[in-house]
C-alpha cells in the first residue's frame, strides 16, 4: 500500500492505511487522517484531511492525479515503488552471449568496437532448421565476435562478448 507522490518535482514516500473508520496516509512528516467523498459537479469531491475541509475537482490519469483546489491546479505524479523496482527484474546481465544450442552463424550485424543497445540484434544463427536472432544483453560495446559467418559452433560457445562494464 505504498506510493511515492511527486509534487513540483519533490518526491514523498507514503503508505496508506485504513483503521476501520478512516483512511490514514502516512508520510515522513506524520500521519494524515483523511477522507474523500464525491460531491457536486463532475470530478467534484470534498476532502477532509488533517482537520481541514476542502472542495476540489479531481481527475486521475494513469500516472498522475490532477487536483483543482482554491483556484489552482496541481499535478501529483503517482509512483508505485514496486514498478520502480521492477526495472531490475532481469537483474544485471552477462557480458557474454552464449550459444543456446549448436549451430551455424548465418549473419553478423555488428563488429568489435560497435556501441550496441540492449536488445539490439548482434548475429543470426541457424540450428535445428530455425534461424534465431541473438541480441545484446545490455547496452555496451562489442569486444569480440569469435565466429565468422558460416562458422559452426557448439553448445555454450561464446558467440559475442561485450567489453566488461566498469564499476
Amino acid at each position, binding site marked *: 500500500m505504498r506510493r511515492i507522490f511527486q509534487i513540483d518535482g519533490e518526491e514523498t514516500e507514503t503508505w496508506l492505511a485504513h483503521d476501520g473508520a478512516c483512511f490514514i496516509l502516512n508520510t515522513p512528516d506524520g500521519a494524515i487522517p483523511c477522507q474523500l467523498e464525491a460531491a457536486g459537479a463532475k470530478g467534484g469531491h470534498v476532502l477532509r484531511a488533517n482537520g481541514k475541509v476542502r472542495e476540489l475537482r479531481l481527475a486521475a490519469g494513469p500516472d498522475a492525479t490532477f*487536483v483543482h483546489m482554491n483556484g489552482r491546479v496541481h499535478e501529483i505524479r503517482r509512483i508505485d515503488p514496486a514498478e520502480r523496482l521492477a526495472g531490475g527484474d532481469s537483474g544485471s546481465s552477462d557480458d557474454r552471449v552464449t550459444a543456446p544450442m549448436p549451430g551455424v552463424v548465418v549473419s553478423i550485424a555488428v563488429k568489435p568496437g560497435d556501441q550496441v543497445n540492449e536488445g539490439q540484434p548482434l548475429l543470426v544463427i541457424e540450428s535445428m532448421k530455425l534461424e534465431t536472432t541473438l541480441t545484446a544483453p545490455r547496452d555496451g560495446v562489442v569486444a569480440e565476435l569469435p565466429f565468422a559467418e558460416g562458422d559452426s559452433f557448439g553448445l555454450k560457445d561464446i558467440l559475442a562478448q561485450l567489453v566488461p562494464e566498469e564499476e
Partner: protein
Amino acid sequence: MTISKLLVANRGEIAARVLRTANAHGLATAVLRHASEQEGPAHLIAHEVVTIDGPTPVAAYLDIPQIVEAAKRIGADAVHPGYGFLSENAGFVAALEKAGVTFVGPTSEVIDLMGDKVRARAFVEERGFPVAPSAIEDDDPASFVERARAVGYPLLIKPSAGGGGKGMRVVREDSTLETEIETARREGERYFGDGRLFVERYIERPRHIEVQVMGDGQGNVVHFWERECSIQRRFQKIIEETPSPALTPEQRDKICETAAGIARAVKYRGAGTVEFIYAQDGAFYFLEMNTRLQVEHPVTEMVTGFDLVAEQLRVAAGDGLSAVQADIPQNGNSIELRICAEDATADFRPAIGDILLLDEPQGEGVRVDSGILDGGKVTTDFDPMLSKLIVHGRDRAQAIARARQAVQNYVVLGVTTNTGYLDAILAHPDFASGDISTGFLTEQSETLTAPGEDVSDLLMAAAALSDERLVSEVMQIPEMHRKMGGWRN
C-alpha cells in the same frame, strides 16, 4: 456579391468563433480538419467538416492548393482564414481570387505591403505617421554620429551584425555618445568581426498598444478603439485588455486616429490591427500592421458591442461598414486571458496530455472562446493556446475581479495550463494599478511563479484516496488487521 457558404480555413477556438457568427447569419459553413487531429468544438459547430492531409497537421493547414481545391469542391464562395496559418499569405489570397472564391480579409497587395516590415515602416513614415527614430551607419557612414544624435536620447547602439544583446549599449547623454559608439564598434568587431553599427531610440519600459480598425476597401475606415497587450511572455501576448489604463482620452483619440489614418492610406479592406510601441512619456511609434482578425479581438467586441466577424463578412460581401465612428462606443473594461497548455514554472515549456476533465467558467460578463473538448488530447502539433477567457466589467477593477473569479474556476485537468500563472498576474498590485510594460513578466517572474501555500498534504491525500488500485489494496487487508495497525507483541 453575396456569400452563401463559408469555409473556415483554420482550427481551434478561432474556427469555432467564426463559425458561430457565420451560422448565426444563416450561412452554410464548413471547417477543415486534419486526419490526425482531435475533435474540437469547431467540428461540432460547422455544418460540414473537410478532411485535409499533409505530412504534418500544420503543413496541411498551410497547403494552399489543397485548401483552395477543397473550397471549390464543397462549393464555398468565401474563405475565412482566421489568424495564423494562411491569414496573411498574399499567395493564398491570389489563389482564391483566381479560383473565384472571396477571401474574407484585405487585398493581397496590402498584405504584401504590411508583411514587409521595412517597406511598411517606410510607407508609414513617408505619410507622416510616427515611427521610432533610427539611424543606420551603412546609409552614410560619414554622417552617422550626427544622425545618431538626431535620434534623441536615450538611444540604443547595436552592432549591425549583432544578436543576443552582445555589444548593445544604451546612451542617455550626448557627452558619452561618441565614446560609446567607439566601444560598441570594438565589441562588434570582437564578437562579430564587423564593427558597423545601427542606432535606434531606446524606449524604456515600453507598452504595447494596438488599435482595431475596419475598412471597406474604398477608403472608409473606422476604429474600434485600442487594446493594451503589454503582458507578454517570450514576445507573445497572454493578457490583453481594453481600454488601456495608460491612455488619457486625448492620447487615446490621437493613437486611434493615427491607426485609422494608416489604414485609410492603404484603403484598407476588412479587419486589421495597427500596433504601436508606447513610451512612458506618451510618445508612440508605429510597429506593424496585422492584416487579419487578432486573437485578442473579443475584448474589443465586449466594450463596443460589435461582432467583428460579422463586420468582416459584411465587408467581404461588399455591404460596407455597418457603423460610422460616432456609433462605436467603448463601454466598461474587458480583459482577455489566453489559456495555454504550458508550464509557467519551467520557462513556458509547452505541455501535452489528455484532458481528463474540462469545466469552463460561466457567468455574467464571462465569455469563453474555447478550442478544446472534455476528453480531448493536447499535442504539440499546434500552438499551445487552448482557449481564451474574456470578461467584461463596468470598470477595470470589476473586470479584474471577474477575470480572477473566472480563471480560478477554469478547470482543465490532465494537462498543465497557465491558469494559476494568469491569476497570479491579475493579483499583482502593479497590474491592478496598470503600471505595466512589455518587460513586466520578465521583471516579476519570480513573484509570479513563487510557490503558493504548501498544500502537499492535502494533495497527497486526494491522490491516494482517488487511487482505486491503492485503496482496494488497503481494503483487501482484513478489517481486524487494519484496526490493529502496526501492532507488535
